[in-house]
């Protein structure tokens, strides 16, 4: 049991953290300190692109905490990502100062254009990084808390919950499109100049943002793994598998869900905040319900409830998207839809889940052949090994992921 944990899920998480931390050092070095003619040189656009992917991976990890471990299929996680992005975007807008097209030292260009006389009250404070950073955490976290407080208390579950999360992001999409909301309307926030006094376009800044994304993702992996392994994490999975059982044991299932949902939204907000300076723009399109659905696909492809799986899924699907939109842009949506159908039908546990399944079978047959060589009865140890390898604690039960109604 302990050996299995050490060589199974725990080791995988340690490897993921190590790889991310190593990338945080190596990628910037290969971009900044290696000559562009060298075979090891990583071009700046690649740094920015992979940095963006890491933000998506963090978003997928956030979704995994609620979907994989608590069965809450949020179709609105893009909203938390976008809100974190807007908070960062507001900071970046105020750093432009008088360098904007209209040269107004206080008002961002779009406000001058829309005849704003003074800064709206909710833009106050965003000239300070610490304040913006606080809002990156607080705004998505508060929205998730309020939303979850009502939804979980009224025991909205399953597909109904998914639909209202989708409605939430759609409502925000419409709201942020409006010019009088004060967030730049259709065009969103862009033309950023500096972050913490450094030029956002500079190679060194891009490398630093990449490193920040990788380190944050590593930290998020660590925190998520710690949450999932705690007693609370076990409770989270218990709520996923048999919610009413937890209630009759005296647990408040709604609070269990609310905590995970809020933590997850904060993680998504951080992902959005790291994303915006790397892509240079945030606009209402980020609230598009389709974006949130894509996050679900990344997570499903990589394997929900595995922590590492959603990261792999986000990286692979987005790399595929970049490649596809370069070669056959019209077909990307078909490819994505086909991928989702294929994964749902053929790999219900995603890439990582399938890998675990293979390893389980391989281990079992190796154990059986070893036992045979030793002249022992190979039948005896086999079933046990198959079981423990194929069903690690906390994994989705093979009988079906939907929580059974308890009676």
């Amino acid at each position: 049991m302990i050996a299995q944990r050490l060589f199974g899920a725990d080791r995988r998480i340690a490897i993921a953290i190590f790889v991310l931390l190593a990338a945080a050092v190596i990628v910037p070095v290969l971009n900044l300190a290696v000559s562009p003619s060298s075979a090891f040189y990583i071009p700046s656009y690649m740094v920015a692109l992979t940095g963006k992917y890491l933000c998506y991976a963090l978003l997928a990890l956030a979704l995994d905490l609620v979907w994989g471990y608590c069965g809450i299929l949020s179709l609105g996680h893009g909203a938390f990502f976008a809100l974190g992005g807007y908070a960062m975007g507001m900071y970046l807008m105020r750093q432009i100062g008088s360098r904007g097209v209209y040269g107004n030292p206080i008002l961002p260009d779009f406000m001058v254009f829309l005849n704003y006389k003074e800064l709206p009250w909710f833009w106050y404070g965003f000239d300070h990084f610490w304040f913006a950073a606080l809002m990156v955490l607080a705004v998505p976290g508060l929205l998730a808390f309020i939303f979850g407080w009502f939804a979980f208390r009224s025991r909205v579950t399953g597909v109904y919950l998914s639909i209202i999360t989708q409605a939430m992001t759609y409502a925000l999409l419409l709201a942020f499109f409006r010019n009088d909301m004060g967030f730049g309307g259709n065009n969103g926030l862009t033309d950023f100049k500096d972050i913490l006094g450094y030029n956002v376009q500079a190679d060194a800044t891009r490398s630093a943002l990449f490193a920040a994304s990788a380190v944050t993702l590593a930290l998020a992996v660590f925190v998520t793994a710690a949450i999932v392994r705690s007693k609370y994490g076990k409770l989270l999975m218990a709520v996923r598998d048999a919610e009413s059982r937890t209630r009759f044991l005296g647990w408040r299932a709604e609070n269990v869900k609310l905590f995970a949902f809020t933590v997850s939204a904060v993680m998504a907000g951080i992902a959005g905040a790291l994303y915006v300076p790397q892509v240079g723009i945030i606009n209402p399109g980020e609230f598009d319900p389709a974006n949130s659905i894509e996050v679900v696909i990344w997570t499903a492809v990589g394997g929900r409830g595995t922590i590492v799986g959603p990261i792999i899924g986000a990286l692979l699907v987005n790399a595929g998207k970049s490649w596809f939109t370069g070669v056959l842009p019209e077909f990307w949506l078909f490819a994505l839809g086909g991928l989702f159908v294929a994964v749902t039908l053929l790999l219900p546990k995603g890439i990582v889940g399938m890998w675990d399944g293979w390893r389980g079978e391989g281990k079992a047959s190796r154990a059986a052949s070893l036992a045979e060589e030793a002249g022992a009865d190979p039948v005896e140890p086999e079933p046990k090994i198959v079981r423990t390898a194929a069903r690690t604690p906390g994994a989705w039960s093979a009988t079906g992921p939907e929580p059974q109604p308890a009676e």
Partner: protein
Amino acid sequence: MSKSNTILYLDGVSVSFDGFRAINNLSLVLDKGEMRAIIGPNGAGKTTMMDIVTGKTRPDEGEVFFDGQVDLTRHDEAEIAMMGIGRKFQKPTVFESHSVEDNLMLALKGPRSIFPALFHRRAAAETRRIDDILGIIRLGEKRNELAANLSHGQKQWLEIGMLLAQDPKLLLVDEPVAGMTDAETEETARLLKDIARDHSVVVVEHDMHFVRELGVKVTCLHEGSVLSEGTLDFVSADERVVEVYLGR
């Protein structure tokens, strides 16, 4: 009628689902420390009665009191569980993706809020209690096994073990021997009698051999109200009971 020495007191309780009266003017009193067997044909309302007591279903009318003074209709499932009412479901419900030991750990009496659970370190006393319960439910060998891999009967026992871990005053046990072998059934009767020594217990069961084994007062429900009450011999000699069980 005085409630003072009762652990459970139901009077004139009714509940309808879409016009269908599942519980109809039901009155039932359980004394402190008593074990009661409840029998009755399928659809008699036995499970619904437990739903009412545990706060899952609100009665349309009637009184439901716990421990003589607590009005259960004013509380929800989690509160009622914390007051000391434990419940085993008709369909065994354990946390399949957790080990047997973790199932008990989640049930163990203690604080039920998020942050203590997040930073929980298992205390020696908790481990001892889990060991005790594993011994009582005879699953010591399976402590690290996933609950999903247990047999049907073992899941029933694990769920009873989770009730014990909760340390309730009153246990509601819905069809504990469904799907068990004869040997397991006998074992379960022994286990419940053991538990009944220091708990109040309500057992719903169809299996008459099992009910006889328990040797306690029997209440027969039919169409949502009490049809007959007394010793098993008395109840099974009651003509109306015979009619309900055999007359169709």
